[in-house]
C-alpha cells in the first residue's frame, strides 16, 4: 500500500516537472496555459491522493481549491489576456530550446544534490518526490528569467507557486490551512493585478 502511494506521488510530481518543460519547448501562449492547467490538475490529484492515504482530510478541501483556483479561474484569466493580445505569433525566448532544456537538466541535478539533507530528516513515504518538487521550483524560476513574453513569465511564476505547493504537500502533507487559504488569496489577487498591469502596458504602448 505504502509503496503504491509513494509511486503514485512520484509519478504525479514527475508529470508536473515535465509540464513545466513544455513552456521551454513550445512557443505559443495557448500551450503554456494548457500546460499550467494540466499541471494544476496534477497537483490537485496529488493532494487528493495524499489526503486519502496520509489521512489528512483537510487536504481534500485544499485539493478542491487548487482545482477551482489554479485549474479553472487562473487559466481562464490567462486565456482572456492572451485573447485580448490577439496574436498567434511565435514567442521568442532569450535562449533557444536546446540550451533551455540543458539548463533545466542541470537544475534538476542541482535540486537532487541540494535536497539530499531533506530526505534524511523525513520519514514520510512521499519523501522521494521532494527533489522533483525542488527541481520544479528551479525550472520555473528559470522560465521567469529566460522568457521575455509576459504570459510566459506569469506562467513561470504560477508554476513556481505549484512547485512550492508540491514541496509542502510531499514534505509535510501541506502547510496549515490558514496559511494555505492566504496563499490562494494572494495567488488569485496577484494574477488579477498582473492582468490589470499588463492591460495598462498594452494601453500605454498603443498611445
Amino acid at each position: 500500500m505504502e509503496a503504491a502511494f509513494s509511486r503514485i506521488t512520484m509519478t504525479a510530481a514527475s508529470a508536473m516537472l515535465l509540464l513545466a518543460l513544455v513552456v521551454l519547448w513550445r512557443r505559443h501562449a495557448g500551450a503554456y496555459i494548457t500546460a499550467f492547467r494540466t499541471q494544476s490538475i496534477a497537483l490537485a490529484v496529488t493532494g487528493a491522493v495524499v489526503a486519502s492515504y496520509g489521512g489528512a482530510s483537510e487536504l481534500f478541501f485544499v485539493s478542491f481549491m487548487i482545482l477551482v483556483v489554479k485549474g479553472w479561474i487562473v487559466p481562464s484569466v490567462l486565456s482572456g489576456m492572451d485573447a485580448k493580445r490577439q496574436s498567434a505569433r511565435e514567442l521568442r525566448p532569450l535562449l533557444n530550446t536546446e540550451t533551455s532544456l540543458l539548463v533545466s537538466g542541470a537544475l534538476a541535478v542541482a535540486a537532487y544534490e541540494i535536497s539530499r539533507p531533506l530526505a534524511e530528516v523525513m520519514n514520510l513515504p512521499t519523501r522521494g518526490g521532494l527533489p522533483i518538487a525542488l527541481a520544479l521550483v528551479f525550472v520555473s524560476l528559470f522560465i521567469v528569467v529566460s522568457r521575455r513574453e509576459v504570459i510566459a513569465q506569469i506562467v513561470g511564476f504560477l508554476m513556481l507557486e505549484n512547485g512550492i505547493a508540491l514541496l509542502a504537500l510531499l514534505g509535510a502533507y501541506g502547510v496549515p490551512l490558514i496559511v494555505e487559504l492566504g496563499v490562494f488569496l494572494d495567488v488569485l489577487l496577484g494574477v488579477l493585478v498582473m492582468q490589470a498591469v499588463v492591460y495598462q502596458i498594452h494601453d500605454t504602448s498603443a498611445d
Partner: protein
Amino acid sequence: MDLMVVLALLTPPFAAGVLALGVRRAPARVAWLNVLTMPISLVAAGAIAVRLATGGTPVVVGEVWRIDALSALLAVLIASVATLAVALGPGTAREEHSQAAEIRTFRIYVNLFAFTMLVAVSTVNLGLMWVAIEATTVTSALLIPLHRTKASVDASWKYLLIGSVGIALAFTGTVLAYVDVAATGVDINVALHWTALREAATALHPQVARLAFVFLLVGFGTKAGLAPTHTWLPDAHSEAPSPLSAMMSGVLLAVALYAVARWKVIVDVAVGSVFTDSLLIVVGLATLAVGSLSLLSQTHFKRLLAFSSIEHMGLACFGLALGPLGTFAALLHLTGHALAKSTTFLLSGRVLHRFGSGTISATRGLLATAPKTAVLIAAGMFALGGLPPFGLFLSEILIVKAGWAAGHPLLTTAVLILLLIAFGSLLVQLHRMLFGEPPTGIAQGERASGAVLLLSVPVVLLAWLGLSIPAPLQMLLSKAVMVIRP
C-alpha cells in the same frame, strides 16, 4: 484589552480602504476622513510600544496575533509614515488638484497597503507573515501607475514580477523550514508560529535550516532592495506617486528586513549565528556598495532617493550581523531612515509639482523658488548623508563601532569609505538643486502651509534622535534587540 489594541491598530486602515472602495462619490471627503482614521492606528501602535518599553508583556490575541517589542517598533514606523502619506496624498494636498478617480484609487490602495504591512509585523505565524508581505506587492503595484505613463506602468510590472517571484522564493524557504520542523513531531498547527519554531529550532537539521535561510534571505531580500535583486527598486520608487514612494522606501523595505530578522532568530538557534551573520555581511556590503556608488550619477531626484534607500538597507543589513550593538544600531538606523526618507520623498512631490519635472538639473535654484521646501529637503538630505545632529549619524557611528568590535576592521573601513562617498554624492546633488539660476516661468516664493508644518515634524524628530535617544525609544530598541539576539 489586548484584543482592543490590536483591533485599534489594524481596523482603521482596513476600514478606510474598504470605505474608499465602496463610496464612489465625494472622494475628497473620504480622503479627509482618512486623515482622521490613520492616526488611530498610530496611537494604538504607540500605546503598545510604550507598554513594551516599560516592561510589559507582548500583546497576544488568539493563535494569530503577537506583538513584541520588535513588532511594536515596526508598527509605530508603519503607522507614522502612513499617517504622513494619507495626510499629504491626493485628495487632501491643497496644491494639487487630483481627479476623483485618482483620489479614490489612491485611498483604496494606500490604506490596504498600510494594513498588509501592519498585519505582517503583528502576526506570530510566519506563514501568515509571508502571506501579508506577498499581499503588500499586490496592494502597492497598481498604485505605482497612478499617473499613467509608459515608464510608470513598466516600473509597476517590473516590481510586480520581481517582487512576486522573489517572495515566492521566501515561501520556498518557509516551506523547507516547515517540512523540517514538522518532521520533528511538533504539532503542525503551531509549527509556523515564531515562538513555537524558536523552541523547536534546536531539533532542526542544520543543513536544511541553512538551505531555508538562503531562500528566505534571497526572497525577502528582494523585497528589501538587497543586491543583487534590487533592480526593481529604483524604477518603482521613482515612478510611484510620492506618498507611496515614502511608504515603500520608508517602511516596506524595513518590513522585509524585519522578516529576515525573524527567521534569523530561528536559524541562529539551529546552527549558531556565524552562518547568518556572514551571509548578511556579504549581502549588506554588496548592497551598500551598489547604492552608494550609484548616487553621484543620478539625474532624477527621486531615483537619487531610491538609490539612497538601497544604500541604507545595505547598511542596516550589515548592522544586523554585528551582535547586539550592531542590531541596536541597525534598528535605530531603520527608524531614522523611515523618518528621513519618507519626508524627502514627500517633499520631492512638492518639488515635482512646482517645477513640473523631477530631473535635478531642472530644479536648480530651489532655495530661491521654494525656500521652505528647500530647507526641509536640505535637512533631510543631510540626515540621509549621515551628518550630525541627525539620528542617522548616531546609528552609522554605532554600526561602524559594532563592526570594529565584532572584529571586521577591513570590512568596516570599506563601509566607512562607502558612507563617505554617499555623503559626498548627496551633498553634490543637493548643491545642484538648491543653488543656481531657476528655470524661467517657475513661480517664486512659498507660503507657510500645513504640509510644510507637518513635514517639519519628522525633521525635528530626526534632530532629536541624533542629540539623545529618548528614553522610551531606547528601552523599546533594547527590548527589540533582545528579540533578535536573545
